[in-house]
């Protein structure tokens, strides 16, 4: 009898767990359609744009879809990239083109990783952030970098 009760209890618990899992999955599916936003004052956008050094930060990003394009003077052929962003949802791309318009970087906004661009022509570089239904915070630092001799 004890075994039978235990078995029934476990059946009920298993069934409850399954119901919970289905409910969570349903919430995930139903909740996909959220109105898209743009960056605003709440995002505390901060840009440091100096020759050879560039920083862009924005936080509190909630479902933002936008493209931000900034011109930056890079006296070097390469830019070292410090990725400190945390964008857990959406499409979040960093695209960099050199002074000749050649794309030297196209990658995701990353969390705590260092990277660098391909070699390009020094001068007026274009830094572009492409956000699609983005959530999180952007924190990117670019520094002029020279290839080793």
């Amino acid at each position, binding site marked *: 009898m004890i075994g039978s009760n235990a078995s029934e209890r476990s059946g009920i618990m298993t069934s409850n767990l399954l119901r919970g899992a289905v409910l969570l999955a349903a919430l995930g599916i139903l909740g996909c359609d959220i109105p898209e936003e743009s960056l605003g004052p709440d995002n505390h956008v901060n840009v440091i744009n100096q020759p050879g050094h560039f920083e862009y930060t924005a936080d509190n990003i909630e479902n933002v879809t936008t493209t931000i394009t900034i011109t930056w003077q890079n006296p070097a052929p390469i830019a070292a990239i410090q990725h400190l962003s945390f964008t857990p949802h959406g499409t979040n791309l960093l695209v960099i083109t050199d002074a000749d318009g050649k794309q030297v970087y196209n990658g995701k906004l990353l969390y705590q990783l260092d990277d660098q661009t391909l070699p390009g022509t020094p001068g007026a570089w274009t830094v572009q952030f492409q956000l699609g*239904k983005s959530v999180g915070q952007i924190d990117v630092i670019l520094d002029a970098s020279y290839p080793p001799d």
Partner: protein
Amino acid sequence: MPAMTRSSRLLLFLLFLTPAGTLLAQGMDSTAQAPPAAGRIAGPQPIPATLQPLSGPSAAAPTLADTLPCPDCHPPIRFWAAAGELMLVQFIPWSYNHFARDAVWADVSFTTIKNNLSYPWQWDDNAFVNNQFSHPYHGSLYFNSARTNGYSFWQSVPWPFVGSLMWETMGEAWAPAPNDFVNTSLGGIALGETLYRLSSLVLDNTATGSERTWREIGGFAIDPLRGFNRLIRGESGKVSANPPDWRPSRVLAALDLGYRNTTTAFSFDSISNGVSQWDAQFTLGYGDPVKDLGGKPFSYIALKAELAGPADSGSHLLGQLSARGSLAAWPVSSDRHHQIALSMAYDYFSNPAVTYGGQSIQAGLVSVFGAPGSKWFAQTNVLLNVVVLGATQSDYYQTIEGRNYDYGPGLGSLINARVLYNHRWQLNASYLGLWIHTIDGSESAHYQDALTFEGRYWMTKKLGAGVSFTGYARHSNYSGLPDVTETADFFRAFISTALPEVPQ
């Protein structure tokens, strides 16, 4: 107190080292081999000896063991303990990352949970070992939170699914990843039940003294949640009977130590050009590969673990970890020598030439010819391999986070034959074919083939030597990019020790 046999100690030690294969030769009928163990408290019924004899006196003679209680035979279901441990195995890694590492992704709140439930899931770009080993191992802990608290195999199956869902939505701020969910849940079941069974193999409720201590430590290392539960419930020192299903009907393990050479362009001088590594391979056949297929899930397990070094940049010290456990079987002949079998498998390969990991379900015909111990014995498998999710090395999808593989479901076949002649000569031949259709990564389809021949000669019941050759090929069709074909050959030479011993 009788001392453990040397082979038992070695097998116990290897099991401790092995967190969770191809089939090994047929298991030995160890009941026939078991020498009496004086001073041991015998079990309540004949328990087939495996690693070493556990039941000394004949079952016909009533012993003290007949009066021993067997609390592990019908353990009560402890829902709250299971749920608490499910939370605990999530809280420990979360709190380490939140408090010690100050990781942003561990900074969870109602907002991050709401976002995880609201926004679409995203495939993640984590490194191969994280996604294909760490997540399944974490899932094995979810599985064992239930399994070691009185739940049966099938009752424990939902737990890694729920645990993974909880972690993905509430344990981290990253978007839930479908690859993590599949690897944690299915991999967690396969690894979880394997580890649970292996810990049963090591544990012995009738043992006392230092042997008992070492067995409990071993059981803890293999299945930490079970060890934790035995400790807090005072079961780790209590003498009682062993449940019959703690011992499989047969068991045979082999440890191969030797040399491996991997080449990606075969030529007669390729051995000098290839990657040379030391190689240690542990294979375990748990249960009878045919008779036990229709028993409880995972009554038969084939486990294989391989360490090779030095590890280069493209591989890890852990070169392979594969576990395949039986789920059900249906005899197609009256003598049960031919059966349609259903099993589930976990695979992890990371060597200088191959990167592949996956969760799969296998079904097909398993046959034996002859009887174990007879002059000729053979076993064959012809299986369809349904890959729920496979991770295959990609030539184009490379991320800075470390991901260099494509994800997708697939289909394949696994055909192998193993022949043992005169108790000494052993030949294994196997073919593995696999097609993976990428659904995340580079737009592609991957076709992989591996053909292996292995020969062994057992000089004694315990000591043997052998060589093996594997030819591997991967052809990857990419959309909009050049296709890639990669080939590799693996040559292995080794000495081998059988544990406990080759059937005679």
